């Protein structure tokens, strides 16, 4: 199995649910190795832990020829930045924008890091656990900012 091979080669630890944990400082090294055997990026997501002031960022990759899936996980602090996987997988573009939008994690070397599902002047990041959910939503006022800008 290619997953076991990668686990041994990169000396990754495994959680009880089968997620391989890697350090965010080794990001490029790990991605380069994964790309060789798992060319399909399935999804990227994050989980917020407010007590530890940290995020878990989760990556899932698939191998198409020999059906197999691999989950990777890395822990980062709230103010920490993570390198972008765009260099290896083009699909990371929108997935990382979604995480930036909903969690506020910034990705280095991302080609176009903007909000994706919320308006650009939205305050806060809704999927963080400390986001107030009983607050009345603010109205989006198109007159404050033009809808279409020429520099787009």
């Amino acid at each position, binding site marked *: 199995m290619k997953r076991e091979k990668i686990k041994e080669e990169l000396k990754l630890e495994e959680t009880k649910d089968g997620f391989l944990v890697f350090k965010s400082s080794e990001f490029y090294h790990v991605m380069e190795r994964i790309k060789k055997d798992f060319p*399909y*990026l*399935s999804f990227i997501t994050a989980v917020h832990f407010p007590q530890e002031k940290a995020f878990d960022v989760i990556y899932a990759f698939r191998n198409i020829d020999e059906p197999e899936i691999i989950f990777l996980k890395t822990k980062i602090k709230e103010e920490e930045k993570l390198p972008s996987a765009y260099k290896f997988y083009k699909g990371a573009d929108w997935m990382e924008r979604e995480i930036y939008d909903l969690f506020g994690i910034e990705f280095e070397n991302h080609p176009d890091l903007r909000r994706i599902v919320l308006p650009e002047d939205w305050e806060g990041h809704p999927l963080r656990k400390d986001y107030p959910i009983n607050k009345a939503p603010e109205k989006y006022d198109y007159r404050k900012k033009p809808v279409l800008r*020429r520099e787009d």
Partner: protein
Amino acid sequence: MEEKVKISEPEEEIILNMGPQHPSTHGVLRIILKLSGEKIVSAKPDIGYLHRGVEKLGETVTYVQFLPMLDRNDYLSATTNELGLVLAVEKLANIPVPERAQYIRVLFSELSRLASHLVWLGTFCLDLGGALGGGTSVFLFCFREREKILDIFEKMTGSRMHPHLMQYGGVRYDVYPGMDKDVKEILDLMEERINEYEEMLVNNPVFIDRTKGVGILPKEVAMEYGCSGPVLRGSGVKYDLRKAHPYSSYDKFDFEIPVGENGDVFDRFKVRMEEMRQSVRIVRQALEGLPEGPITSQMPVKVKVAVRTPPGEVYTAIESPRGELGYYICSDGKPNAYRLKIRAPSFSNLSVLPYLLKDHLVADIVAILGSLDPVFGDVDR
């Protein structure tokens, strides 16, 4: 792409704002196009008009309450949406599922795949417009057939569009007496009609001109972007989660995975048409082999039993009509999820749009967008 129309050199680039009120953007999509004459220099899709925060809702309500909300997520194939979450929670909490329930799940997943593909075919031909002999005729034909499938859903569960059929540990409703006759009637009709529609379209020179060689998606690009379902298979990758990682006793069914060759709009059309035939085959097998026994291993959902899961993480994916629909659950042992991520197939499939639109003509946008089959409830969540 080879230019079919001779276009004089334009003087400057212009920006065109397409959508969100454009009739062929399937509801709510805005594309900011940079044009040089009729040619697209770059395209920036703008999504989020239908964002309702489904993932945040999934964290605040219990698993039992969240299930009917998922019907509204991808509103064209409600049963497959429920099936994904139900499988994830069952895997995490180790809830057994009786075999009869698994067969009923397969049966209704495939029926909703048929219904969903019919909507796709109808709207796709509507987008391509009057060139197909009347414009709305294919659209109306498809919706006529779809209505017959939705009638089965209504007879079974009482609701056409949002059936809420699944339940943790099984299904909520058993098949009603005489259902196999109703379903077989539709399947016979469908087999005939699918051939009819395909014959009608592939022999139409205008249809071929607008779809062949347009929007070519190479294999490697499709994989990098995480495209799945008919979009990935249209590019020639033989990958279907029903075969690769069988769930809900799909390994007991006999069916083929259709693949395309060039990865253009026409191939994606062919793959979906063939998939409909295979769905008919699976439904037939499910009806014939429907085992006897209980339909659920849990108490009925009307008795308020909070489904709890042990702490842990799980990811399960199913093949929805649009591709890999996955649910990632991070649980801390409560009756609601700590974090619930929906891996939406339409989201990844749509993200390849800027790549596909480059260097095409404006008129090709609707053909390419229609061939990706995005459902915006699923894209924006």
